[in-house]
């Protein structure tokens, strides 16, 4: 009985945080990609990425005097392994450092501005010209797409913020199908475009990151639509590659504005919610959570001091419109 109790509580601890699922799934995808899809990355490079990401997280945690939590760093590291390609070990290491350090350095009101992996990749592409992303590496196997969608669905549902994923994919599908209908293209073309593994990975594992999306549900809807339009425009109007990544990086800059107009509660990994403004900030001070929670509390209090407590769905946007 005692053993069962211990096992049960270990399992509960393991499943309590959606990041454990993410780590397992991203890790599984990496193994699958290396074994079955000939991903252009070696095991050594993957290991170097993960180790560098963890070391950077440890170092930054010391410097910023926060508790070391390897989980987010592992997720960022695994995402880098899945996406970033380069000929040089030097850039592998630099990319991992930039990715993790961006979380600590590029902050606004206690919240990091960019999805770390997204920032790492975009910054490296802009700054070095020595890295690339292969959106075609996943192929278009329908079953694989389906599998990824299911697995990703599990993650985002548990992250309690699947709204951003759903809003994004609905908007993106509407644009891709809309363009094909306008151009008299057969439906096999937009379906082929949407069956892309790169799109699924982005939709379920990157844009869904609850720590970098707007706090309120309405804000996330606007954000998702913005990213979808940007990605579509870059890919199908400007004819450039990696529209998804560029669009997310650009849209991330608008998040502080969206949060200011449509405030909501900051996401907490151990207490997933959809982002209502709370009646009282009791849960934000949850002990043992991520280091950002204290900052989140600070940001929350600051907001309420300067703007007054607001109900979900209302907020400054309404008042701005009224005035």
């Amino acid at each position, binding site marked *: 009985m005692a053993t069962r109790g211990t096992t049960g509580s270990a399992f509960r601890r393991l499943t309590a945080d959606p990041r454990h699922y993410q780590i397992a799934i991203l890790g599984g995808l990496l193994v699958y990609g290396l074994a079955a*899809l*000939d991903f*252009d990355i070696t095991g050594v490079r993957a290991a170097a990425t993960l180790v560098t990401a963890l070391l950077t997280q440890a170092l930054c945690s010391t410097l910023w005097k926060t508790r070391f939590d390897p989980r987010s760093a592992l997720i960022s590291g695994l995402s880098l392994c899945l996406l970033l*390609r*380069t*000929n040089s070990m030097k850039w592998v290491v630099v990319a991992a450092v930039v990715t993790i350090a961006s979380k600590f350095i590029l902050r606004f009101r206690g919240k990091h501005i960019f999805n770390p992996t997204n920032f790492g990749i975009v910054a490296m592409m802009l700054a070095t*010209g*020595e*890295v*690339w992303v*292969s*959106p*075609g*590496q*996943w*192929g*278009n*196997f329908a079953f694989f797409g389906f599998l990824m969608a299911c697995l990703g669905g599990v993650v985002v549902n548990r992250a309690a913020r699947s709204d951003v994923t759903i809003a994004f994919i609905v908007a993106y599908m509407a644009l891709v199908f809309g363009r094909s209908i*306008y*151009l*008299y*293209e*057969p439906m*096999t*073309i937009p*379906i*082929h*475009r949407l069956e*892309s593994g790169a799109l699924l990975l982005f939709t379920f594992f990157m844009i869904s990151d609850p720590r970098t999306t707007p706090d309120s549900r309405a804000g996330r809807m606007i954000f998702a639509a913005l990213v979808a339009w940007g990605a579509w425009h870059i890919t199908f109007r*400007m*004819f*450039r*590659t990696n529209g998804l990544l560029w669009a997310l990086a650009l849209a991330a800059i608008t998040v502080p504005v969206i949060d200011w107009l449509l405030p909501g509660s900051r996401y907490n990994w151990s207490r997933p919610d959809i982002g209502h403004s709370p009646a009282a900030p009791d849960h934000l001070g949850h002990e043992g959570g991520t280091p950002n929670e204290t900052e989140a509390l600070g940001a929350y209090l600051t907001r309420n001091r300067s703007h007054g407590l607001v109900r979900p769905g209302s907020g400054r946007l309404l008042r701005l419109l009224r005035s």
Partner: protein
Amino acid sequence: MVWSAQALVAFCGFYVAKVDARLFNQASQVVLVRDGDRTILTMSNDFRGEPKEFAMVVPVPSVLRRDQIQVSDRDLLEHVDAYSAPRLVEYFDPNPCQAPRGRGAGAAGGGGGGGRGGGAAPAAENSLGVKIEAQYTVGEYDILILSAVESTGLETWLRQNGYRIPRGAADVLASYIMQNMKFFVARVNLEQQSRLGFTSLRPIRVEFDSPKFMLPIRLGMVNADGPQELLVYTVTRQGRVETTNYRTVKLPTGMDIPPFVRGRFGEFYKAMFSEQAKRAENRAVFTEYAWDMGFCDPCAANPLSPDELRKLGVFWLADTPAAGPRGQLAAPRQQVFLTRLHVRYDNAHFPEDLVFQQTADRQNYQGRYVLRYPWNGGDSCAAAVTYRQGLPARYEREAQQLADLTGWNIGDIRRWNTDDIRRRMGIAELVR
């Protein structure tokens, strides 16, 4: 010694018959020179019918000027093909009783050439919504640049003007019209052809500025009789090119295979390509070669000379390139990277046009298959005994490797291998 595979060849536009001839649109080769937004596209095909039956329709992003269209040289394409072709290399095992020795490798040469064109004519309008934006005679080709407002009008116009358009073409043409693309239509001017004295059709080269780095393949599938072969050679400044909307896969390379393959390399390569395409569910684009044009190792053919590169449209070469060291095979380093992509495509597996991106990947890759001939000497030192004991396992390993690559029956391979080994041992006995 080096052997290059027979070109497995195919095309992005479609052939339209002017008479009711059955055309087998099977093999095309395309060179895409690209830097920034500028593309220089050289299109070649293995059309074997009557020249008067040949016609080609290719969507292009803008109305091309006369100076943006040239007739190129078949030798040039053949040289690119030879330089980048998958290759077979041979090694001869040394006498295990002596110190290890080197290996043998050789090279074969390639050629060059030139191309030019003729006059131009003014534009005309049409009630079907088709407008002849430009009209040129270039070399042996009569070329029209058409714009259209709707696809059935274009299809009717082409039919009225003697082009036999395959069924279903209008559906495909429509989306290109909606994207405001123009249509490059070429057919052979028989008078010019006989005057110029060319018996085979020369490749056509066009250039344009467009952010689109793509190749329209959908028209090519309209009158296709089964899957088609397309070889795309991209020449870029920075690095390897890959497709962004399909998986790009490097073919297996560097394997040791039984020496009997020497006499049937073409057959081996076709079988291997088919097997690998099947494993990728016929949805992949295959990289056969990705190499800095400055050199090759081993060389199936010399790298292209700066002059040949310019003829292909490589515009970023220095005007007076620094010559390489005397006697060196390599062309001067000019930041020219060649990628050879091989696609076998049909409608079911390749619903949309190929979209490319240039990567920062400068790692050289080549399709290279190794034949190792065993040592047949009569020495009986301990090393020779061990060596001979190891041979059967090696033969089996090579046979398994070949079966895995090609999907050939392992029993057949073992039999062919045994016959070949016996034949070679017999020759060795005779020599002794």
